[in-house]
């Protein structure tokens, strides 16, 4: 469409990402609730969500801090969970790498699972999009997502202040993670990576300072990478 304007592209971004509103609201509320139950104030919880905007990493940090893991282990483990953001950044680069630096910096801060998935799908569908159009679309996509992430973290934290203790909320984080893991099992390599990581983490549970998690994560990643290579070789031979 020759008449496509930056404004209509921005609005299309909003429409395309709006189904995620149903996911963001409960997820952000849950973080707010669990964080205040763990002893964080409403302000601390909200700051956490604004500074980091990464649900899985925030839940990881919360869990490990509750276990009194050393600060460095908390940081490294949570960043490891967030390493996929580097993957997203790499995937977005061919499309928006030529945009002005300030726009790329802002887009980087706003790179989350949903903005990556929705934007890259649209960029692939419409290769003729100009760089300003792509940026307008990207900012449209994050418009219904990021403000709700902040807002419902606040709502959850606010409600959490009145929430009674003894509601087995200790298990909210494991359940949330298990629910997030399931859709990640896209290939055999993903399943192998997860299974190996689980076995190693159980065997290494006795290692002090939660370092067993690091070991299990690295061994799991290697298992996933090797499975992928093995499958590629097998396919290569079959052809």
């Amino acid at each position: 469409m020759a008449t496509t304007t930056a404004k209509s592209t921005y609005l299309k971004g909003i429409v395309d990402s709006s189904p995620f509103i149903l996911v963001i609201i409960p997820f952000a509320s849950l973080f707010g609730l669990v964080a205040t139950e763990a002893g964080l104030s409403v302000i601390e919880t909200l700051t956490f969500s604004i500074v980091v905007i990464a649900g899985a990493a925030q839940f990881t940090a919360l869990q490990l801090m509750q276990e009194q893991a050393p600060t460095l282990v908390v940081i490294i483990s949570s960043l490891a969970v967030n390493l996929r953001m580097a993957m997203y950044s790499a995937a977005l680069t061919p499309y928006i790498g030529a945009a002005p630096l300030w726009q790329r910096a802002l887009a980087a801060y706003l790179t989350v699972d949903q903005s990556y998935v929705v934007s890259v799908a649209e960029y692939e569908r419409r290769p003729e999009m100009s760089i300003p159009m792509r940026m307008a679309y990207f900012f449209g996509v994050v418009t219904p997502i990021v403000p709700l992430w902040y807002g419902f973290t606040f709502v959850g934290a606010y409600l959490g202040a009145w929430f009674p203790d003894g509601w087995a909320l200790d298990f909210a984080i494991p359940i949330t993670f298990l629910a997030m893991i399931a859709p990640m099992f896209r290939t055999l390599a993903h399943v192998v990576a997860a299974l190996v990581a689980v076995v190693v983490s159980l065997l290494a549970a006795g290692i002090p300072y939660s370092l067993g998690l690091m070991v299990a994560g690295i061994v799991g990643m290697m298992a996933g990478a090797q499975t992928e290579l093995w499958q590629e070789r097998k396919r290569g031979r079959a052809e």
Partner: protein
Amino acid sequence: MIDKTTLWIVIIALGIGSFFLRFVFTGLVGSRAMPDWLLRHLRYTAVAILPALVAPQVIWPQATGGETEPARLAAACVTLLVGLLSKNVIAAILSGAFTLYGLLYLLG
């Protein structure tokens, strides 16, 4: 209880670190190519780290002092199963929560 100094160090470090991870390619690398072996490992970080984090808590929950407990174990299995079948994160969380509270009530 979470120590306040630790909390703020973690929030600030995660904020800077997460921004760096998001900016590293779009902002710094530009269009240069990444080594294959690195990308191949990065693909499996989340799917390895998250299960490794959860597994010990499912088998030995802190709330019970490390004693394996049927309600939590069942809730974990139901969550994973519903997640695998439906690919719907919220449905999986709700089924897990329902199983947990249902069993805690019945067994309690």
